[in-house]
């Protein structure tokens, strides 16, 4: 959920855009990271760990911990907490360690 009113802050979210999460269209703003947009849409489980398949979500939100890896436009292991949304972007839950296609 987005914060609509805040006593101290104003948010410069940019323009409305849409992208795809597991094939589903999601509304977002151009100044948001993928992680923020997914959280706003209520998606907090971002994937599963490669070996024990435990559910994974973000932890640090600043690109430090690798807990938020997803496949973005076919590229695996993207830290979505530091990657901005782009219109039409395809964001997918990743299977295992991901495969890099040349």
């Amino acid at each position: 959920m987005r914060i609509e009113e805040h006593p101290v802050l104003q948010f410069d979210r940019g323009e409305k855009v849409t992208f795809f999460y597991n094939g589903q269209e999601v509304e977002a703003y151009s100044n948001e990271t993928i992680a923020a947009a997914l959280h706003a849409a209520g998606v907090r489980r971002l994937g599963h760990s490669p070996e024990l398949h435990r559910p994974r979500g973000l932890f640090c939100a600043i690109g430090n911990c690798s807990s938020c890896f997803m496949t973005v436009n076919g590229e695996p292991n993207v830290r979505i907490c530091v990657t901005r949304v782009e219109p039409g972007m395809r964001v997918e839950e990743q299977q295992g360690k991901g495969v890099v296609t040349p």
Partner: protein
Amino acid sequence: MIRNVEVLVVGGGPAGLCAAQAAASMGAKVTMLERDYVPGGQLVKQTHKFFGSEKQHAGERGFQIGRMLLDEIQADPNIEILPETTALGCYEDGVITALQGDKHLKFRPERTILATGAAEKFLAFPGNDLPGVYGAGAVQTLMNVAGVKPAQRVLMVGSGNIGLIVSYQLKQAGVEVAGVVEAAPRIGGYLVHAAKIRRAGIPILTGWTVKEAFGKEQVEGAVICQLDDKFQQIPGTEKTIACDAICLAVGLTPLTELCWQAGCEMKYIRELSGHVPVVSDDLETTKAGIYAAGDVTGIEEASSAMVEGKIAGYSAAASLGHSPEEAARLRQEAMEELRQLRSGPTGGKINAGIEKVKQDGGVVHVNLYRYSH
């Protein structure tokens, strides 16, 4: 292609911003790398009025201080700011590599100032890897930068200033805080912050900890329990808290990977919250030409980070022959400022830590890597 630069500042928090400003004001050409979209470091996320002395803009809200520092340097033609650029490696010959989008950049700086700040500490308990267990910094980034609620109802772990401040910020953002648990018998943070959140009706439980997080695909609740005076869990005291997030505010530790890579001598100093580079009074590490400033030299405050930034900036500029006398005078002034800051109530611990860094021996070389199974 390797770019030659005069002074390279890694990290654009209060320490990095002030280091860049100081070095450039003496005539040095500065390039600053910042991982985030906007420089400012921790300041970007802080909505509260800062403590500290007026000289470091105390009384202003954190994000406003960050903006002021940034405005000051953005106009400076001697400073090039590269946002969304993460330094990846610091090599033995001084070369620094960085990632900017999908571009791999290489720099050969004459002087480097490492101002990478801190990383959050983690806590061991069953279920701590479930989605919804967040670092306090992540909660702040989501709500104060992106304007997105991290959850509906949060359990805060840790009653230091960060735990208290973030609890209050959650309340400001319209998120319910179920309570704050604190393992120690006393509240860790300042009384003003504790009073504010007590007034907001948020309970603070001292002598309690989180025993486990439960939930299938994400956090659905937490079990908390009481601790005895040896910090052991007391069976039978368990309580279940309904919450969809657990926020860990259990301290910070210096973010020193680049210092390790560069081969700086490192020491583990408890008072400074982890491994820190051994530095001289000029804040030069044991690797000639590499300086360190701010939380990376020990977890402290924004005010001291700014002053340390200045000391490193003036020292680096002077060592390159830029206005050496003027730089020496300003550096001396900054050192006096730092001394005054550390004569305050929290300074004792920091001073004790710094003394330990200066003593011989006690060097530990271990690397702390995290790995996700």
